[in-house]
């Protein structure tokens, strides 16, 4: 009511004029606008939380709650029929850790992981260096390299377990043609790890290649030009400029492939038709063992304990992961993830150049491309 009264006396075009009846207070704005303002203030304040909430709500329901619940179940003797459990302390952990199968599975997992990630990374760096040249039909080659990534691991496993067949497999037939005795890909533990690692390498090398390529493209070209002027060969340039600049990206790729590698399931599960990891657990992995305990023996308590053991193993590596990702997240406001990687790579190279320049006494203009501004990294 007062609002309409003041509206009549004061023209709406001067909203800041004080109310003549109460000169100590600023004049109230017309109600409709005030409400709109408040609404938009609330809109501004609340909407960010609304936007991020779907992720967090779903994560709490299907992520956080199950993790906590796994811990609870792992201390229980879970009864499937009653769908509840009886508290028995650390017994399940003790049981799992005293199983020889667990240690075999752990060994297999690490063996397969090493056999897959080391050659894969070396190969990926090499292919990325090839793609980083001034080649024709860039898109075509990039797509070609990524092609295996679209094939399901199950499909890859079926194809490769056929190729690595003990009797009629392509690999052994080829070996026989070369006069080499056949390798027992399915009965020898190490051979089976090689075969499974080959599947992983087939599917993931191209993916990692493209990640490394993106980082390579961010290395300022004038470093190479300067090196070429100094008379460095292509090979020398590769080891002195490319590889050191890739370090942050390499750390990232190593950590993600570690986490993925420790969880490997699809390939060993499909390596033969029984899916039990071989007659003598030659290629039994931890996740395969977890599946067997949980859904083969229907012992959820033990499966949960094993899941937590696996998690603790991964956590050791995950902590490193967190440190790295925190560094990625911290310097906000600059550019994308690749951009940041680019920047760090460029900054590192620039620092090295600076060091080299100062140590050799000729402080040339080497530190010119220091990347305080994101533009310099492009």
């Amino acid at each position: 009511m007062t609002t309409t009264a003041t509206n009549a006396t004061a023209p709406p075009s001067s909203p800041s004029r004080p109310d003549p009846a109460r000169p100590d207070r600023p004049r109230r704005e017309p109600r409709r606008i005030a409400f709109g303002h408040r609404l938009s203030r609330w809109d501004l304040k609340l909407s960010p939380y609304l936007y991020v909430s779907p992720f967090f709500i779903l994560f709490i329901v299907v992520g956080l709650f199950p993790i906590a619940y796994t811990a609870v179940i792992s201390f229980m003797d879970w009864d499937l029929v009653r769908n509840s459990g009886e508290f028995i302390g650390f017994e399940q952990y003790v049981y799992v850790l005293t199983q020889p199968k667990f240690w075999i599975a752990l060994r297999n997992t690490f063996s397969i992981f090493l056999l897959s990630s080391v050659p894969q990374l070396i190969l990926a760096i090499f292919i990325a260096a090839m793609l980083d040249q001034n080649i024709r039909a860039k898109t075509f080659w990039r797509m070609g390299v990524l092609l295996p990534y679209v094939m399901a691991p199950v499909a890859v496993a079926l194809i490769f377990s056929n190729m690595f067949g003990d009797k009629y497999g392509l690999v052994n037939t080829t070996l026989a043609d070369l006069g080499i005795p056949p390798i027992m890909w399915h009965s020898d533990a190490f051979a089976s790890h090689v075969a499974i690692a080959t599947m992983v390498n087939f599917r993931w090398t191209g993916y990692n290649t493209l990640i490394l390529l993106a980082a390579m493209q961010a290395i300022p070209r004038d470093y190479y030009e300067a090196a070429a002027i100094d008379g460095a060969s292509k090979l020398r340039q590769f080891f002195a400029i490319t590889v050191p600049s890739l370090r942050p990206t390499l750390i990232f790729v190593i950590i993600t492939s570690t986490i993925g590698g420790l969880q490997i399931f699809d390939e060993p599960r499909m390596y033969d038709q029984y899916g039990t990891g071989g007659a003598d657990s030659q290629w039994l992995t931890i996740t395969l063992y977890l599946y067997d305990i949980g859904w083969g023996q229907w012992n959820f308590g033990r499966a949960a304990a094993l899941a937590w053991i696996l998690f603790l193993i991964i956590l050791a590596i995950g902590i490193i992961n967190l440190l790295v990702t925190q560094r990625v997240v911290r310097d906000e406001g600059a550019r994308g993830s690749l951009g940041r990687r680019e920047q760090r790579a460029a900054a590192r190279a620039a620092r090295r150049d600076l060091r080299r320049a100062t140590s050799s006494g000729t402080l040339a203009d080497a530190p010119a491309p220091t990347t305080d501004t994101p533009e310099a990294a492009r």
Partner: protein
Amino acid sequence: MSVLNPAPLAVVEEGIPNASTRRRRPRRVQGSRPGWFVYTSLVIVLGAAIFPFYWSFLIGSGDASTIRDPNMSWLPGGNFLENAASVINDPAVNFWRALWNSVYSSALIAASVVFFSTLAGWAFAKLRFRGSKWLLVFVVATMAVPTQLGVVPLYILFSDLGWTGNIGAIIIPALTSAFGVFWMTQYLQQAVPDELIEAARVDGASSFRTFLTVGLPAARPAAAMLGLFTFVSAWNNFFWPFIVLDRNDPTLPVALSLLQSNYFVDYSIVLAGVLLSTIPLLILFVFAGKQLVSGIMAGAVKG
């Protein structure tokens, strides 16, 4: 990202004294086309990438004896359609059902992940709110949590709800993704200038309206890539569907796994099934793979 093209010459001029006299040499380094070594390596790599596809066609188009033939021909036989038909008609595999489940669940997951990730990424990248930094760190940290850790209780949860065997059990946990949120945050941070948001706000657009008119269009290249990657990984996912889905109502990877236990002797049928299940993704890749690369390029060029 497209560092190759415009920048280097300009940088050379700043970086090296007497740029005019020295310019010729770097330019030659820059412009030189690589030699046979590079192309030979790439052809070998491409060959290794394609060979397993060809191999599965080779075996899949033969019959049960092909694999045992020591003088096997490197040309495909004529039995592919027959083998494919026996995969499709196998009552134990339920191929059409599996195909439909895969298409439907992957599409739904991809659409949902793209939308919610863009929304959350927009908030993290462009809106100021209390605790945003820590929430983002939290999002990133969740990426390190292995899927296995939640599998047992999730299974118990879904069987309590009576959803085991239901395709919903694989869709619901996948509706959002930490990677997606992080990815869109990173992209939107550099893709949208703050002035554009201020302009929209001055024009009286609500927060959500601003998102729709400014954020979504700018996010398109990154969203396309995220959608593609999510679709591929949802399509290929095996561990959780294998646990929770009913054998009569599988997705394609689960159906493939049944194929092997079913026909473990006859690899020609197994590999025909492998190829059959991969064809939809190959088609998608042929069309969208290009867009993926051009999306990366477009995202890097302009703000």
